[in-house]
C-alpha cells in the first residue's frame, strides 16, 4: 500500500495543522479565550460548529489517498468506508432506500417489471418488507447511538469534574446526538441500501453527495488560505509604509477588483482549460489531473478575492500605525518587518478570521454557479455544482427524478447554513461594529 499525496490533500492537512496551532495559541491567550468562550456560549453557534466540524472531519477522511500494491485505482479512506455503495453495480435510477429500480424494463422472464437492486438483500420483495427492514435498522441505530452518547456523557462528567466552568448545553447536546445518530445510521444502512438512491448510471447518490463535501471544503477553505498571504502582506505594507507603496498596492487591487469577478474567473478558467488540454499527457491519472484543476481553480478564485480583505487590512493598519505602541516601536528602532509582523499583524487577525468565516459559504455557493457557466471543477470531480448541473435536466422527467437534486441541495444547505450561523456569531463577537445589536 502506498500513500498518494495530492496537492489539495497536502494543503488541506497543512490547513488542519495550522488551525491546530491556532487553537494552542488561543488557549494561551486569555483575551482570545474569553472571546471564543463567548462565541460558544450561544447554543446555536455551538451546534452550527459541531455540524461544521463534522463536515470537516468527512472532508479530511476523504483527503487521505492510497493505492493497493496490486491495483491501479487510488482510494481515499472515505472511499473504503463507502465501499459497499460504490461497488454495488446497479444499472440505472432508483429512489432513496428502495429495493427496486426506478423504471420498469423487460426482465429475464419476459415480463415487464422493476429489476431488484444488487445491494439490497434478495429476501426483500415487497414494500412492507422493505419498510420493516428500514425500521429495524433505524431502531438499531437509535439504540447504538443512545449507548454512544451515554458513554460520551460519562466521559464528559469526568471532564466537568476537572473544569466546572464548562456547562452542558441542551441544544448542542441534541446536535451532537443527531450527528452521532446520523453516523451510526449511515454505517448500518450503507451495506444494505442506497440511502439516497442511485443516479442515471447506477452510481450511489449518497456516495456522490458525501464525496462532494471535500470539493466544497477545498473551495471554501483553500481559496481563503491562498488569498491570505497577499491580502495580509500587501494590506499591512500599504497601511504602514503609506506613500508610494500605498499608491502602488491600491492601484493593483483597484485594477483587479474593477474587472467583473465572474468574467475574470471565467476567462482564467478558459485559459487554464486550453493549457491543461495541451499538456494533458503530463498528468499520470485522471485523479491527479482533476485535482490539479481544482487547486488551480482555487488559485484563480483567490486571485480575484484577496482584494476585499486587503482593503480592510489596509484601513485598519492605517489607524493602528498612528497608535502609540507602533510609534513607540519605531522610536526604539524596531525593524519594519518586526513591527509589521509582531505588532500590527496580531491586531488585524480578527479581520482575517471574520473574512475566512464569512467568505466560506459564498465560495461554496459559487462553485455551483461556476459549474453551470461551464467553468467549474473538472467533470470527473464530484461536486455539488456538477450534481446540480446534471440534475436540473432530470427535473423534466415524469415522475420527477428529484433525489439527486434534493441530495445536493440538502448537503450543501446544511454546510452553508451552519457556516453562516457560525460566521454570524464570530463576527458578532470579534467585530466591534457588529456587536451593538444584542
Amino acid at each position, binding site marked *: 500500500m502506498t500513500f498518494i499525496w495530492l496537492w489539495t490533500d497536502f494543503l488541506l492537512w497543512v490547513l488542519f495543522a495550522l488551525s491546530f496551532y491556532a487553537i494552542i495559541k488561543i488557549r494561551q491567550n486569555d483575551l482570545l479565550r474569553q472571546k471564543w468562550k463567548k462565541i460558544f456560549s450561544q447554543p*446555536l453557534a455551538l451546534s452550527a460548529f459541531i455540524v461544521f466540524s463534522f463536515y470537516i472531519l468527512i472532508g479530511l477522511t476523504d483527503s487521505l489517498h492510497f493505492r493497493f500494491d496490486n491495483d491501479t485505482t487510488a482510494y481515499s479512506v472515505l472511499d473504503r468506508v463507502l465501499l459497499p455503495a460504490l461497488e454495488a453495480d446497479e444499472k440505472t435510477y432508483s429512489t432513496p432506500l428502495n429495493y427496486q429500480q426506478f423504471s420498469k424494463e423487460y426482465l429475464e422472464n419476459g415480463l415487464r417489471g422493476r429489476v431488484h437492486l444488487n445491494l439490497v438483500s434478495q429476501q426483500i420483495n415487497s414494500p412492507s418488507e422493505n419498510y420493516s427492514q428500514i425500521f429495524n435498522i433505524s431502531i438499531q441505530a437509535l439504540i447504538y447511538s443512545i449507548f454512544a452518547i451515554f458513554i460520551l456523557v460519562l466521559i464528559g462528567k469526568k471532564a466537568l469534574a476537572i473544569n466546572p466552568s464548562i456547562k452542558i448545553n441542551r441544544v448542542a447536546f441534541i446536535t451532537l446526538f443527531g450527528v452521532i445518530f446520523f453516523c451510526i445510521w449511515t454505517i448500518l444502512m450503507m451495506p444494505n441500501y442506497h440511502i439516497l438512491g442511485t443516479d442515471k448510471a447506477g452510481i450511489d447518490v449518497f456516495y456522490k453527495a458525501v464525496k462532494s463535501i471535500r470539493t466544497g471544503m477545498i473551495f471554501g477553505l483553500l481559496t481563503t488560505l491562498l488569498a491570505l498571504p497577499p491580502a495580509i502582506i500587501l494590506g499591512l505594507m500599504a497601511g504602514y509604509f503609506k506613500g508610494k507603496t500605498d499608491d502602488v498596492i491600491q*492601484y*493593483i487591487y*483597484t*485594477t*483587479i*477588483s*474593477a*474587472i*467583473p469577478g*465572474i*468574467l*475574470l474567473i*471565467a*476567462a*482564467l478558467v*478558459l*485559459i487554464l482549460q*486550453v*493549457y491543461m488540454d495541451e499538456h494533458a499527457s503530463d498528468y499520470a491519472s485522471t485523479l491527479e489531473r482533476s485535482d490539479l484543476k481544482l487547486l488551480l481553480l482555487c488559485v484563480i478564485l483567490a486571485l480575484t478575492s484577496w482584494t476585499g480583505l486587503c482593503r480592510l487590512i489596509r484601513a485598519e493598519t492605517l489607524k493602528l500605525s498612528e497608535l502609540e505602541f507602533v510609534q513607540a516601536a519605531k522610536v526604539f528602532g524596531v525593524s519594519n518587518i518586526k513591527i509589521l509582523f509582531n505588532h500590527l499583524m496580531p491586531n488585524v487577525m480578527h479581520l482575517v478570521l471574520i473574512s475566512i468565516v464569512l467568505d466560506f*459559504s459564498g465560495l461554496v*455557493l459559487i462553485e*455551483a*454557479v461556476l459549474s*453551470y*457557466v*461551464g*467553468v467549474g471543477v473538472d467533470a470527473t470531480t464530484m461536486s*455539488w455544482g456538477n450534481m*446540480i448541473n446534471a440534475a*436540473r435536466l432530470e*427535473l423534466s422527467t415524469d415522475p420527477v427524478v428529484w433525489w439527486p*437534486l434534493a441530495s445536493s*441541495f440538502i448537503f*450543501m*444547505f446544511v454546510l*452553508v*447554513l451552519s457556516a*453562516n*450561523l457560525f460566521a*454570524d456569531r464570530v463576527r458578532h463577537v470579534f467585530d466591534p*461594529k*457588529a456587536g*451593538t*445589536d444584542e
Partner: protein
Amino acid sequence: MWTYVFRRILYSIPILLGVNLITFLLFFMVNTPDDMARIQLGTKHVTQADIHSWKEEKGYNKPLFVNTNESGTAVLTQTIFYQKSVPLFKLNFGHSDSGRNINKDITERMWPSLALAIPSFIIALITNIVFAMWMVTLVGTKLERITLILSVALMSISGLFYIIIGQKIVAGLWHWFPVSGYQGGTESWRFVLLPVLIGVVAGIGAGVRWYRSIFLEEINKPYVNTARAKGLSERQVLFKHVLRNAMIPILTGVVVVIPSLFMGSLIMESFFSIPGLGSYTIDAINSQDFAIVRAMVFLGSVLYIIGLLLTDISYTWVDPRVKFK
C-alpha cells in the same frame, strides 16, 4: 465639483490601462491566435493555409508587443497589442472572432438586460429596506430571532435552486408565467416578472440582514433617542431620521452596482432565454469567442469605475457635510 470629477476620471485611466494589459496578457499569451483560428474555423477540413488566412483577415498575424519589421512608431503600433487595445478606449470593440460587430450586438442586447436588471434592482431594494425596517422594530422579540434565522437560511440556498424550482413549479406547473422567452416592447413585462421575482426572493436573505445591520447601527445613536424624546412616533423616527442617516452606508453599497446592472445577469438570462448581455457573455464563454469576452471585461471595468465615481458624487448629494478633496 467638476474639477474633482475630472481628476477622478484621469485617475481611472491608469486603472483601465491595467485592466487592458491584464486581459490582453490573459487572452493572447496563453491562447495563441492559431488556437483562436482553429476554434472559429470549425471542425471539418481545416488546413494550415486556412488558419493563416484567417489570422491575416482578423489582424492576428502581427507580433504581440514589438514589431521589429517596422520602423519609427510603427514598431509599437503595428502589433496585436496596440491594434486590439487602443480602440477599446474609444469603446470601439471591433468585430467578434466569428465576424460580427460587437458594438452593434451590445446596443441590441442591452435593452432586455436592462428590462430585467432595473426592476429586479429597484424591487429588491425596496423590499429589502422595508423588511429590514420591520425587523428593526422587532428588536428583542422572539419573532426577531425567527426572522433572523429565516433570513440566514434563505441566504444559505444556492441561487440556482431558486431558479430551477421557480421555473419548474411556478411557471411549469401553475402556469403563472411564460416558462421562458422574451418579447420586446410593451409585452416584455410578462417575461421578466418571474425572473425578477426569483431574483428578489433569492437576494432577500442577504439583503435584509445587511440593511438591518446598518439600521441597527443608526438606531443606537444618540440623536434617535433625542427624536424619540421629542415625542415623534416610532414610524416617524424610522423613516425621517434613521433612514435618512443610513443613506451613506446604503449608498456605498448600492450606487456602485448601478452601472453594472447594464451587464445583465449571467445565469438568470440564460435560464430564461432572455437575449441580454448576460447570455451574450455566457455564449461567448462557451464558444470561446475571446474578442467578446474581452470586450465585456473591459466594459464591466469601465462601468465599475463609473460606479465608484457616482458613489462619491452621491455622498455630497445625501450629506452636504462631505466635501470633495
